[in-house]
């Protein structure tokens, strides 16, 4: 319990620091916030006044920051200069796509990565060699290259999957998200397979496994209750870190497949200097990243009694 409180406090610190940086960066831009917010547009005096009003540019910095933070905590990130609507509304609409994509990819990673790694760890020889080679290869190929390759082969070449777009209905969305999810998960699945293989191998060689065998326990029982049970600790840790990494990876993948998620919103906002959106997306990404890490730590403590004291 105290651990949880301490972690939540740490989380709050990280978020405050991140928000301060994200907000403060606006003022580091050459020419100040006004130049930044206007960008290449030449504003009429009314527009400039409106921006000054909206961003409270006439108040002292800290006051503005605190006001912004207060609104942000309540889910109000201001409104987008480009889209002319509430940032929070934009986020909810786009967040669903990203959440679906990351969830889908997580499922693929866990199923494929852990299964392949376990097989490779338990069966040295051909299965292991094939899986290890495949995972080394997929680790070297960047996500966006995988995405482009998949589009060329499966969408343009074989025509099995749609190239771009969101799709209709839940199944349609899943169908449309399949290539992006595979793209997003391939490298991570390969990485997880490696970790799983290594930790299964390591546990197999542990003395306590010899003890279990010496007691006449069935091999299946030994593998399940001792080898896999213990190997699951590092695997869960890495899975969590990988999922957190997917949040960042989705930025790239959404752009490959032109999906309307947070990532494509983010990139467009950067290009169009839509700073309210940039700030909000960064905060959302950092929050999600930190939360996933917290969940991982909690899982590890549940799995490994040595960590709780």
């Amino acid at each position: 319990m105290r651990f949880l409180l301490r972690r939540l406090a740490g989380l709050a610190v990280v978020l405050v620091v991140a928000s301060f940086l994200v907000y403060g960066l606006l003022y580091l831009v050459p020419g100040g916030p006004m130049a930044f917010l206007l960008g290449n547009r030449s504003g009429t005096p009314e527009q400039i006044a409106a921006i000054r009003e909206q961003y409270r540019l006439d108040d002292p910095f800290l006051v503005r920051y605190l006001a912004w933070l207060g609104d942000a905590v309540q889910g109000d990130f201001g409104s987008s200069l480009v889209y002319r609507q509430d940032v929070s509304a934009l986020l909810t609409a786009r967040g669903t796509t990203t959440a679906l994509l990351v969830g889908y990819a997580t499922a693929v990673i866990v199923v494929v990565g852990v299964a392949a790694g376990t097989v490779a760890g338990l069966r040295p020889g051909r299965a292991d060699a094939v899986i290890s080679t495949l995972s080394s290869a997929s680790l070297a190929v960047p996500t966006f290259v995988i995405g482009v390759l998949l589009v060329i082969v499966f969408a343009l070449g074989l025509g099995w999957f749609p190239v771009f777009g969101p799709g209709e209905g839940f199944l349609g969305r899943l169908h449309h998200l399949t290539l992006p999810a595979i793209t997003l998960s391939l490298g991570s699945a390969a990485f997880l397979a490696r970790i799983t293989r290594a930790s299964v191998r390591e546990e197999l060689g542990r003395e306590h496994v010899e003890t279990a065998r010496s007691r006449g326990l069935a091999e299946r029982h030994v593998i399940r209750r001792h080898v896999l049970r213990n190997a699951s600790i590092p695997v869960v840790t890495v899975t969590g870190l990988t999922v957190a990494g997917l949040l960042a990876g989705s930025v790239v993948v959404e752009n490959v497949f032109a999906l309307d998620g947070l990532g494509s919103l983010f990139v467009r906002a950067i290009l169009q200097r839509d700073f309210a959106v940039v700030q909000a997306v960064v905060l959302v990404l950092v929050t999600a990243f930190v939360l996933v890490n917290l969940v991982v730590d909690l899982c590890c403590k549940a799995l490994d009694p040595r960590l709780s004291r």
Partner: protein
Amino acid sequence: MTALDTVRPRGGFRLPRPGPALRRLGPLGTGAAVLLAAVLATTLLAPVVAPYDPNRPDLFNALAGASPAHLLGGDALGRDVLSRLMWGARTTLSGPLLIIFLSTTIGTTLAITAAWAGGKVDAVVSRLLDVLFAVPGIVFALVAVAVLGPGVPGVVLGLTIAYTPYVARVVRSAALRERQLPYIAAAWVQGRSAVGICVRHLLPNLRPLIVAQSVSALGFAVIDLAAISFLGLGVQPPTADWGLMVKSGLDSATRGQPLEALGAGLLIALVVAAVNILGDRIGREEGELR
């Protein structure tokens, strides 16, 4: 670009002892080293070996397939894909090398300072690293681009910030371990200054680890920078760059010319694989030395 060029000779992945090291690399490692050497040679020799001007459009060659005149065909504007790949190696590799150089220098300095000073300095540095770790690396790069505008400087700045904590964490724990060893105490007793000991004794002993760490980070830097260029936020057109070429190649592919995307994608993957293999070998060797 000149700033980037001066960095290359000091690039992180030169092997410490070329002769015996090459023999210990094994066939796969040697293959990786040869591939990297070839790519590096191309970056230097692009003006000589590239068959065409990478930026000269040729309407007759637009979206053309492979032909004897244009081995990999042309892109949407009819520019020669092969020549663009050769020139693109420059931008694709120089950015990551600069990022690794900067983050390794900053990270190592921070780490050794923290490990040596201990106490409050160490606590502050460690907390700082924790906070940096709480944010995914690519987000730093994107935020930096948001502030500085699209282009290489913003990305290099952002990725340097993102990579520094990784270097610092590894080096810090190694430096803490190394500090306990008697030879440091011996140097201290001899009346050497702290800086002197760090530079003359600590650093050389940490070097294998730092080299291994930089090489494996280089693979990630190549991927990240190419990805950001792919998003349109890094290297800007019309400069030839592999990440950008995957992007424009995707459009060409939907119009029937996949060679640009495939060529650039394959090269990125090969270079990253080669760097990873070398990093793995060097890391293993470093492990054996301990």
